[in-house]
C-alpha cells in the first residue's frame, strides 16, 4: 500500500517552509565535501551544489524507511506524522546514512572542483548558504512555498555578490536557470552547468576531435576507467536545458568513446527517480527498463545526475557499473 500522497507531499512542503529543504540535513553534513579544498567564500563566480549530491544518501535511507512504513499498520497514521513533523524533524530520524555512504556522495562536488581548476576556473563557494533549490517541491506543485524559498536563495546570492552560479546537477540547473526567472523579480544570475563551462573551455583542437553520436574505436586512457561507455542522458539536462552535446564532447576529448543506447539525447528514457519519493516500486520498474537499454550497449555506463546514478545503480544490482561523468573525466586524465 502506498502512503497517503497528500500527507507525504505535505511533510515535504512543511520541511521546505520550516527547514529550507524537503529533506533537511545538518549544515555540517551539507558542507563536509568542502574539507581541504580551500575554496573562496562567495565572489562573482561560485560553485552552487543545491545540496543535491549530498542529499542522495539521505533520500535513499528515507525511501527505504518509507517502504517499510507503507507495509506496516503505521501507514494509516501519516496524517499524525505530518503534524508531528511540524514540531520535530521526523525525516532526520527515518534515514541516517553511514559515513561511507555520505562520503561517497561528497566525491562528486569535489571532483567538479578539480575539473574546473584543471580548466583554469577557480570558483567560490557559499558553504552553509549553498541552499537546496526546491526542485522536488516544485515538481509536486508547491509553487507558493518554492517561490518563498527562491526569494531566500536570491537574497543569499545577492549578499555574496554572486553573478555566475556554476551548477553540478541537472535539477538545480533547471530550477535556477529556467524556473527561478518565472518566480522572482530581478533574477539576474548567470547559471551554467559545469559541463557547459568545461565544454566551453575545450581547446578548438579538442572540440574538432570530439565526435558526438559517433562510435570511434576505443582510445587508450589512463587510470582504471573504461575506454568506451554507454551514456545515459538526464531528462532534465537533455529536454529541459538542452545539455546534450557537452557531455559527449567532454568524454570524446578525454579519449572516452561514447556508445549510444536505444534512446539517447533528447529522446532519453527516464531513470524513474522523480517517482521514488511517492512510488518507489514504479521508479524501480522504470529504472530496470532503462538499465536493459543501456546494458545492451555496454556494461560500463555514465550518468550526469545524482538521482539517475543511484536509481540506475540500484536497478542494475551489480550487472552494470554506473559512474558519474565527473569521475570518468577525472579518471581519464589519471586524476581521481
Amino acid at each position, binding site marked *: 500500500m*502506498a502512503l*497517503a*500522497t*497528500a*500527507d507525504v*507531499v*505535505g511533510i515535504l512542503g512543511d520541511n521546505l517552509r520550516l527547514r529550507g529543504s524537503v529533506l533537511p540535513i545538518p549544515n555540517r553534513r551539507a558542507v563536509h565535501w568542502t574539507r581541504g579544498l580551500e575554496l573562496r567564500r562567495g565572489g562573482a563566480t561560485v560553485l552552487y551544489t543545491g545540496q543535491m549530491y549530498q542529499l542522495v544518501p539521505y533520500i535513499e535511507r528515507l525511501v527505504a524507511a518509507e517502504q517499510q512504513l507503507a507495509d506496516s499498520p503505521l501507514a494509516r497514521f501519516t496524517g499524525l506524522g505530518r503534524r508531528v513533523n511540524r514540531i520535530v524533524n521526523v525525516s532526520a530520524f527515518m534515514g541516517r546514512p553511514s559515513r561511507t555512504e555520505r562520503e561517497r556522495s561528497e566525491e562528486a562536488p569535489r571532483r567538479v572542483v578539480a575539473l574546473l581548476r584543471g580548466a583554469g576556473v577557480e570558483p567560490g563557494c557559499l558553504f552553509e548558504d549553498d541552499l537546496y533549490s526546491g526542485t522536488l517541491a*516544485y*515538481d*509536486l*506543485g*508547491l*509553487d507558493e512555498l518554492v517561490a518563498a524559498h527562491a526569494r531566500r536563495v536570491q537574497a543569499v546570492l545577492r549578499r555574496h555578490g554572486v553573478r555566475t552560479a556554476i551548477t553540478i546537477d541537472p535539477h538545480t540547473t533547471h530550477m535556477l536557470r529556467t524556473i527561478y526567472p518565472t518566480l522572482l523579480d530581478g533574477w539576474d544570475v548567470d547559471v551554467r552547468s559545469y559541463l557547459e563551462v568545461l565544454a566551453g573551455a575545450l581547446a578548438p583542437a579538442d572540440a574538432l576531435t570530439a565526435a558526438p553520436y559517433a562510435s570511434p574505436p576505443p582510445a587508450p586512457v589512463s587510470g582504471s576507467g573504461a575506454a568506451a561507455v554507454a551514456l545515459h542522458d538526464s*531528462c532534465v539536462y537533455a*529536454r*529541459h536545458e538542452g545539455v546534450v552535446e557537452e557531455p559527449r564532447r567532454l568524454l570524446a576529448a578525454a579519449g572516452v568513446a561514447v556508445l549510444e543506447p536505444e534512446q539517447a539525447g*533528447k*529522446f*532519453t*528514457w*527516464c531513470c*524513474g*527517480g*522523480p*517517482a521514488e519519493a*511517492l*512510488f518507489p516500486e*514504479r521508479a524501480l520498474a*522504470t529504472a530496470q*527498463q*532503462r538499465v536493459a537499454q543501456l546494458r545492451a550497449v555496454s556494461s560500463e555506463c555514465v550518468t550526469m545526475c545524482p538521482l539517475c546514478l543511484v536509481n540506475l545503480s540500484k536497478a542494475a544490482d551489480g550487472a552494470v557499473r554506473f559512474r558519474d561523468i565527473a569521475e570518468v573525466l577525472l579518471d581519464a586524465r589519471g586524476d581521481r
Partner: protein
Amino acid sequence: MTALATVGGAALGDKLRALGAFDAETCMSCGICTATCPLGIDVLPRQLLRHAALGLEQRIRDEQEVVFSCLLCRACEQSCPAGVHIAQDIRLLRRWLLEQGGE
C-alpha cells in the same frame, strides 16, 4: 474550447489557468504521449488531459495517484505534434488537487 470546458458542468480549465499556463485543450488526443510514456499507465497522460479539458473533476480526483506518478520527464512533449506543455499541465493538476485537500 468553451464547449469542451463546460461539458462536465465545471470550468476546470479556467481554475487551472488561474494557477498557471494550462493548455490541455490544444491536445488532439492522438495518443503519441501515452505511447512514449516510460510508466506505461494507459491513463497517462492523454486520458488525464482529456478529463481535465472536459472539466471532469471527479475523474481527476479518482486518478490522483496517476497525477502524482508522472515523472515530468517530458518524453511525451518531445513527440507531441500539438506542442502541448504536458508536464506543466500535470503540475497544475497537482496544485489543484493539493488545494482541494488531496485524498
